[in-house]
């Protein structure tokens, strides 16, 4: 990761590895070294105009955990000094270990790949459109779909509603950018719960009316 692009104003100086990082409390440049961590070797984020939320939803999908340094998603220069000061509390293993962002912090990554996102790191503040809490919306949608396609109904429908609401709120606060997905999951969840209730009601009514008397174990008392 020592390819420093001379045209890249935000590139880490000389790739920033080799332990040259004096610790994160003393950032002379705005948010430099962590950009590289966004993707392996990716210094392209440095070049991106800082307004854009460059990541969309990708980092959620297993990018080696650079993202707990929350900020680089937004890349805004103001994320330079203040947040990195907070990191040493987590043992900032960045010195000289840039490429493997995921590994040093979290040790072996077990079955679920790089853990990132949803970390309540205090400095992972949004410029609007952060993708920090995108997980919620995605799970809400998955559960909402499952409640229909898999006939799970209220079993996954209720979590879909809960997660959908949380995801909506997160998106409104700027900590996620998939409000549409969240709404979809929420709506599906509500429909599933509604249908379940209607179904249960119908079942109870039919049972009371005796529509099931020809099946099952009611004894034929005729």
């Amino acid at each position, binding site marked *: 990761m020592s390819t420093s692009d001379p045209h890249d104003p935000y590139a880490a100086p000389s790739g920033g590895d080799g332990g040259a990082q004096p610790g994160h409390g003393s950032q002379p440049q705005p948010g430099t070294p962590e950009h590289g961590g966004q993707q392996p070797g990716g210094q392209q984020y440095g070049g991106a105009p800082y307004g854009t939320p460059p990541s969309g939803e990708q980092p*959620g*999908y*297993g990018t080696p955990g650079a993202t*707990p340094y929350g900020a680089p998603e937004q890349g805004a220069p103001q994320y330079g000094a203040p947040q990195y000061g907070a990191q040493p509390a*987590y*043992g900032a293993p960045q010195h000289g270990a840039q490429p493997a962002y995921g590994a040093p912090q*979290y*040790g072996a990554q*077990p*079955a*679920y*790949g*790089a*853990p*990132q*996102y*949803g*970390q309540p790191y205090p400095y992972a503040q949004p410029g609007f459109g952060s993708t920090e809490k*995108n*997980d919620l919306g*995605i*799970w809400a949608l*998955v*559960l909402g*779909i*499952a409640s229909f*396609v*898999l*006939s*799970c109904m209220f079993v996954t429908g209720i979590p879909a509603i809960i997660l959908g609401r949380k995801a909506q709120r997160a998106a409104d606060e700027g900590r996620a950018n998939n409000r549409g997905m969240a709404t979809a999951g929420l709506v599906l969840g509500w429909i599933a719960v509604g249908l379940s209730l209607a*179904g249960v009601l119908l*079942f109870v009514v039919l049972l009371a009316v005796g529509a099931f008397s020809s099946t*099952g*174990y009611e004894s034929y008392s005729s």
Partner: protein
Amino acid sequence: MQRPRVGVGTARPWWSAPAALAASAVGALALVALRDPHEPGSWGLCPSLLLTGWACPACGGLRATSDLLHGDIGGAWASNPLWVTLVPVVVAAWVVWTVRRYAGRPTRVPPVVGVVLLAVTVVFGVLRNLPVTGGALGP
């Protein structure tokens, strides 16, 4: 590592959630062991099966669980192969979760896992209702 355990500073210890989940799972297994799902109607009826006539991906799950509890893996596989495959995954997931809580590591599951699971389950649900593959995958 100076990482604090999950739950340090809160009223609940780190093992409370995994333990609660494990306890409820054991309770559910006990219920299945006590009330044999192989007897028709012992666990009620299946609304989706009645309404659509198709086996949802969970069909046979209770019977499979009962068979597994009695050691009959072949029978369990015949009832619901997806569930039989997922049981070790679920157990492993619980272990991983507990270990992460112990070590204070993040327990976030990337949503990719959920999407993949959903896709696999849907495909399974479709396949088990088709004439060609329904024999092997059916309830």
